[in-house]
């Protein structure tokens, strides 16, 4: 009776019995020519809240900026121990899951088959996860930690050096600088993403709950997640995602414009920046309309190839031997310094642990609903062990290599060759200043700008898909105009903030959402363990 289909038996999984039907709270309506299928009230409230916050920030610039910034600083300086300790919990849980028997559980049922090949899957999770950050901080962060560690005042309360630094000792300062950078880009951020993604994937594919943030809370709140509690979680996730993306897009446009000015002498005016945002949003629009496979996946793969090309170029043309041996040295330096760097209490390097580490953790955590949802969406059919290996371990190793190649080259330009260009260049130009010291500058810098722009596009399009899914109550087949709406909305918010001057304020606001989400993630840890224990393995 049944024709050949592409649905194979999935084997066993333990579905959660609930009377809730996905989409039961949705409103399906037609406004003008547009069909809508949105969750009531998540869509409306999150949309209105975002508009209200943008207006508030623009109208009361003098008070809004300092207020949001003060909130962010208060959170990362008072609760630094909380962020640092929680991030440690996430890493430890992930590592335990890899080696425990729970690692055998398969997302989607014992016999489920993966939706994506390794290469497509990896390209997508990397592009969504941190692609753009690697472009900007790959050169600047190692240099920054190196300089503060090397400086004479390292170790004093004024210093921003990690772990007291290594005043006057260039080699030790470089090791410490690389270890601190890798600490911020290695296991911890990926563990944060992995926890959210694993929880969502488990409760969606194995437990049959909708793919939306509230589902993680089912083991704790039960049926109440369909009510107010769940609405708040989902609205907060939309809020963090949209403001995180819009402010990054605004800052990204400023940085890309600075790059274009540096390379081609194109003046970095507001018009240039607005056109960059429109351009990036335009490509993202085409990508979301083309869909996950034809749009997001393809762009991510193109990005992956370009990033590998740039990386290989730096490795081959730069100090090859130093980079290759540096990879292992930095890995060792990272492991050696990891206990001290991740220590949540009794730190004497408050500027570093609060200003860098706690800020980073809050930042990664505020991005985690977005990146986690996206990773979950493309990870069906993998075992927990495979999942953590590919979402935590491999990306961490790639980051070590990337940071070694870009940061190591920059440090060696400064220390070995005595070139000051990179060190004195402003943050957004450090990558280009480093490439300028290598041959074929025009080509590699152009490649750099293209990468920056495409990484923004892949964040913007996957972000629109995620926001659309949350505001449609976990439905991924809501009408296409809805994702177009979110993509355009994000671009408009970015332009409004860029022109009105509220990027910094709302970015601080977005980072502050890292605090409530840290609690969400800790609950997710409990939910993951509970959920996995009841699965057949």
């Amino acid at each position, binding site marked *: 009776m049944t*024709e050949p289909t592409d649905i194979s038996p*999935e084997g066993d999984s333990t579905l959660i019995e609930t009377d809730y*039907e996905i989409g039961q709270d949705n409103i399906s309506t037609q406004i003008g020519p547009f069909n809508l299928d949105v969750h009531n009230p998540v869509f409306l409230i999150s949309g209105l809240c975002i508009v209200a916050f943008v207006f508030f920030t623009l109208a009361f610039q003098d008070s809004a900026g300092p207020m949001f910034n003060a909130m962010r600083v208060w959170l990362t300086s008072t609760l630094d121990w909380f962020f640092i300790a929680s991030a440690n919990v996430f890493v430890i849980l992930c590592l335990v899951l890899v080696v425990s028997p729970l690692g055998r559980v398969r997302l989607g049922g014992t016999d489920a088959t993966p939706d994506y090949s390794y290469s497509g899957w990896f390209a997508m999770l990397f592009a969504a996860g941190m692609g753009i950050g690697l472009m900007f901080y790959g050169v600047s962060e190692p240099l920054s930690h190196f300089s503060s560690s090397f400086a004479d005042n390292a170790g004093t309360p004024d210093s921003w050096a990690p772990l007291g630094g290594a005043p006057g000792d260039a080699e030790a300062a470089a090791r410490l600088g690389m270890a601190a950078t890798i600490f911020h880009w290695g296991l911890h951020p990926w563990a944060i993403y992995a926890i959210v993604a694993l929880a969502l994937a488990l409760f969606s594919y194995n437990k049959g709950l909708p793919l939306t943030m509230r589902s993680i809370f089912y083991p704790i709140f039960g049926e109440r997640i369909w009510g107010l509690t769940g609405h708040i979680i989902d609205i907060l996730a939309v809020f963090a995602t949209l403001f995180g993306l819009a402010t990054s897009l605004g800052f990204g446009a400023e940085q890309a414009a600075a790059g274009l000015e540096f390379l081609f002498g194109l003046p970095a005016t507001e018009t240039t920046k607005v056109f960059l945002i429109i351009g990036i949003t335009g490509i993202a629009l085409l990508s979301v309309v083309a869909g996950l496979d034809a749009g997001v996946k393809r762009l991510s793969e193109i990005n992956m190839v370009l990033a590998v090309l740039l990386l290989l170029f730096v490795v081959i043309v730069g100090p090859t031997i130093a980079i290759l041996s540096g990879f292992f040295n930095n890995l060792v330096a990272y492991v050696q310094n990891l206990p001290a760097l991740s220590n949540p209490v009794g730190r004497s390097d408050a500027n570093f642990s609060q200003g860098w580490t706690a800020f980073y953790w809050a930042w990664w955590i505020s991005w985690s609903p977005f990146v986690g949802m996206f990773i979950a969406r493309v990870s*069906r059919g993998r075992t927990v062990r495979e999942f953590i290996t590919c979402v935590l371990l491999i990306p961490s190793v790639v980051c070590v290599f990337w940071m070694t190649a870009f940061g190591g080259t920059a440090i060696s330009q400064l220390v070995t060759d005595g070139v000051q260009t990179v060190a004195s260049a402003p943050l957004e130009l450090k990558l280009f200043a480093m490439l300028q010291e290598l041959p074929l500058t025009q080509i590699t810098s152009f490649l750099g700008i293209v990468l920056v722009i495409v990484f923004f596009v892949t964040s913007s399009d996957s972000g629109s898909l995620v926001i659309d899914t949350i505001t449609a109550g976990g439905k991924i087949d809501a009408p296409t105009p809805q994702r177009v709406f979110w993509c355009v909305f994000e671009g408009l918010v970015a332009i409004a903030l860029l022109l009105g001057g509220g990027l910094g304020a709302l970015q601080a606001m977005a980072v502050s959402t890292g605090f409530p989400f840290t609690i969400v993630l800790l609950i997710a840890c409990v939910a993951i363990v509970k959920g996995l224990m009841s699965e057949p393995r």
Partner: protein
Amino acid sequence: MYSHIMVPVDLAHADKLEKALQCAADLAKLYQASICYVGVTASTPSSVAHTPEEFSKKMEQFGQEQAIKHDLSDVRSASYISHDPAVDLDDTLMRAATDTGTDLVVMASHVPGLLEHVFASNAGYFASFSKMSVLVVR
């Protein structure tokens, strides 16, 4: 005239398909053709089913119900997974039509509006690009 008829089915809105289902059943009886009901699902849980496997079972059940209701002898069902059904639906149905050796597709469609100039309706796209005959029922 036709020997294999395919009917795309949206289980979430099966009530709106009545005309198309009746039409396909009448044509099947007229030409002694087989009918294959095809459903497309995402891999994430939906209002219809919690897992793709459950979806597949519901499609099979739907096919059997249709067979009894319209007194059809040769009825089958098929289920397909799409990564992004809001966008990939047409291509997935096209693939299903080829896989099942279909020579006539009977599908329901809503009355086109302004938006169809920008986003083609599924049936319209299908009629334009598929190789087999397509009967769009409104």
